[in-house]
């Protein structure tokens, strides 16, 4: 693996932080439970806070808080520059300072979908010391004291009126950026830049797990009324009543599609014909596996993140063939150069031992992989044994199927014979229970091609009922 990529993986692993405590924290918030009063600390420059900051925060946020720590260049979104006085996740009016509680919550809960982990493992006293220290880094905040937004009354799930919420979503122009179905593909969603001159992507509202400021109605309500300062997301406090904002918040929550994170793709055996289309009714009966994708890509030493963050995979098979169905969100359908594209990777038949991670593949002396490749500029998908991401120059077997683009989502169906003589060396699925598979996706709209793409880890394709006996399991990297 490339040394830089290895380092990046390490950073991700470290930033992933402790997983425990989130459920409890979220539950506390949902219950509106009051936090203990903050301990009295010196708001000017708390020495304890500075020490905690230097130990835990400076590597990303920089020694002086300018968002320029040694790890900053490896993160997207970039770490916050505290010195400019913008605070994104507030319960206060646009442009006014966050409350100490706002900062405390961000530290405690982290920012899902970004590199900012939760820090609930720090003591509450340490977190409050950090709050005081962060305030001291942006003196301008003191000149615009927090102006709390009206919180109205949470109607609760039982009294949430989703039809009204949907109407408010339309009236408020949410779809202009977030898209009609919330997939982050509105007409104004392209080319957005934040206050720091960095590219910024519109939130995909179907992915509740990546809402930076939290996915509960209370969190969404705050983002609506306070806006997200430093980003294109404005405050709706002057445009919407608290009652409507709550209905909208519940509607936005209803757009979230709970992810089915799994490490296995359970292929279902069908007795008869296999589905040929993405819309076939049988797919509703097949287990779906959602996979988060690694989007870190470096070009010339700079981080140029890929844009597709997750993919859903389903599979069905019979005695002859297996059909894969991949679905993912992409802001625009791109047939032009570079086109949107997808690859499902399988190890070749002869493969034994470790598999290279797709993130680093192909390496200098690459092992061949079988790629089931689809590209939006060509009719039909093909399978190839290849040592390049595009499969150029290798023999190809056509894979029947279709690709459908609908309002920010691609759905791709590809049928591969269980075994084929047309592709010498390809694995025969007639004899296997488990086989490693991985996915790579290219967003042409983000200028992705070749090695610039989002990739999954290797996961297991499980054929619950093998077609023949004597299963073998080619090696896989754990």
């Amino acid at each position: 693996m490339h040394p830089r990529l290895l380092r990046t993986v390490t950073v991700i692993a470290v930033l992933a932080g402790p997983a425990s405590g989130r459920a409890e924290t979220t539950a506390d918030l949902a219950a509106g439970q009051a936090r203990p009063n903050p301990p009295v600390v010196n708001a000017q420059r708390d020495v304890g806070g500075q020490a905690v900051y230097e130990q835990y925060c400076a590597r990303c946020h920089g020694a002086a808080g300018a968002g320029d720590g040694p790890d900053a260049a490896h993160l997207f979104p970039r770490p916050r520059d505290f010195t400019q006085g913008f605070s994104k996740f507030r319960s206060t009016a646009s442009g006014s300072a966050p409350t100490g509680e706002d900062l405390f919550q961000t530290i405690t809960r982290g920012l899902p979908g970004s590199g900012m982990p939760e820090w609930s493992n720090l003591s509450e006293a340490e977190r409050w010391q950090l709050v005081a220290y962060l305030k001291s880094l942006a003196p301008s905040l003191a000149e615009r004291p927090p102006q709390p937004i009206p919180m109205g009354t949470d109607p609760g799930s039982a009294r949430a009126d989703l039809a009204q919420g949907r109407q408010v979503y339309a009236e408020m122009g949410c779809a202009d950026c977030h898209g009609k179905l919330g997939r982050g593909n509105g007409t104004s969603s392209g080319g957005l830049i934040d206050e720091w001159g960095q590219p910024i992507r519109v939130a995909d509202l179907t992915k509740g797990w990546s809402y930076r400021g939290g996915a509960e109605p209370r969190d969404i309500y705050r983002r609506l009324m306070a806006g997200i300062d430093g980003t294109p997301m404005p405050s709706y406090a002057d445009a919407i009543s608290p009652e409507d904002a709550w209905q909208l918040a519940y509607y936005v929550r209803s757009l979230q599609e709970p992810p089915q994170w799994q490490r296995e793709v359970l292929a279902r055996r069908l007795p008869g014909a296999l589905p040929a289309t993405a819309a076939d009714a049988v797919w509703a009966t097949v287990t779906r596996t959602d996979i988060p994708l690694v989007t870190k890509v470096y070009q010339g030493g700079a981080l140029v993140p890929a844009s597709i963050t997750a993919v859903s995979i389903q599979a069905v098979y019979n005695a002859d063939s297996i059909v894969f169905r991949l679905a993912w969100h992409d802001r625009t359908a791109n047939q032009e150069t570079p086109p949107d594209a997808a690859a499902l990777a399988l190890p070749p038949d002869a493969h034994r031992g470790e598999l290279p991670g797709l993130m680093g593949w192909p390496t200098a002396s690459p092992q061949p992989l079988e790629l089931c490749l689809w590209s939006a500029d060509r009719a039909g998908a093909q399978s190839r044994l290849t040592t390049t991401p595009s499969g150029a120059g290798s023999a190809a077997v056509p894979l029947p199927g279709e690709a459908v683009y609908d309002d920010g989502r691609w759905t791709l169906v590809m049928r591969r014979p269980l075994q084929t003589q047309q592709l010498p060396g390809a694995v025969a699925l007639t004899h296997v229970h488990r086989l490693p598979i991985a996915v790579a996706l290219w967003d042409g709209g983000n200028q992705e091609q070749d090695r610039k793409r989002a990739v999954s880890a290797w996961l297991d394709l499980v054929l619950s009922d093998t077609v023949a006996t004597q299963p073998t399991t080619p090696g896989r990297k754990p």
Partner: protein
Amino acid sequence: MTARMSRVVLTAMVLLALGCGGAKSATATSSESPSEARLQLAEAPAGTAPAAAPGTATVTGYVGLQGTAPTGTKVKMEADPVCQQQHAGGLVDEAVLVRNGKLANVFVYVKEGLGGKSFPAPTTPATLDQRGCWYTPHVIGVQAGQPLELVNSDATLHNVNAKPTVNQPFNVAQPKQGMKTTKSFAKPEVMVKVKCNVHPWMHAYVGVVNHPFYAVTGEEGTFTLAGLPAGTYTIEAWHETLGTQTQSVTVGDGETKTVSFTFQSP
């Protein structure tokens, strides 16, 4: 109607509508003279510091451009049909708007020379309109603390994202036609950029000063700073792409002095 013309007409309409608002342009043919308008502005609301005695000196002039103005860029507004419908012939963004060698959209103001004199902020709001997915006027002046009314005249979502460095920033949504939001800037700042993220071609500039002696040049490139106390002043002319120029002028009671600026085309 050409796009340029439509902009000009819109500008004139708004300037007329503004009346005593911040943008005082020589093209606005209000029955009130600019100085009268300013006297009205200077009426202090109860409880504020007394206004400095209005003067009788005037600084006037024009802003010219030497060389050929760069051609404007065509605005791509296909993304929002509401915007496109209002510009059947297309819209050209002319950052450097020149007519007969005279430069429009230049903010001209007294930068130095007023000493510690205080000029209470008018309570009459200045108006920044979003109309046809364009800010009207493109450049506007206000006094620090003066209400700035943001109006959405379009049947589409706009957000007004103000990016000051000295003042408090804000970013507010205006999803409905006819919506008004009133904001103000507490401190002098030349200039505050305002933009719309929904329509990335939309941007405007707000000049915030702590006195009423400012103007924005219109199509004729002229400006008038009237009602000044006698004194020696540094006058600055600011343009969004051409930069700033300053000149010093001494003017006595009842006098009118002419000061003109010439920017060089890039």
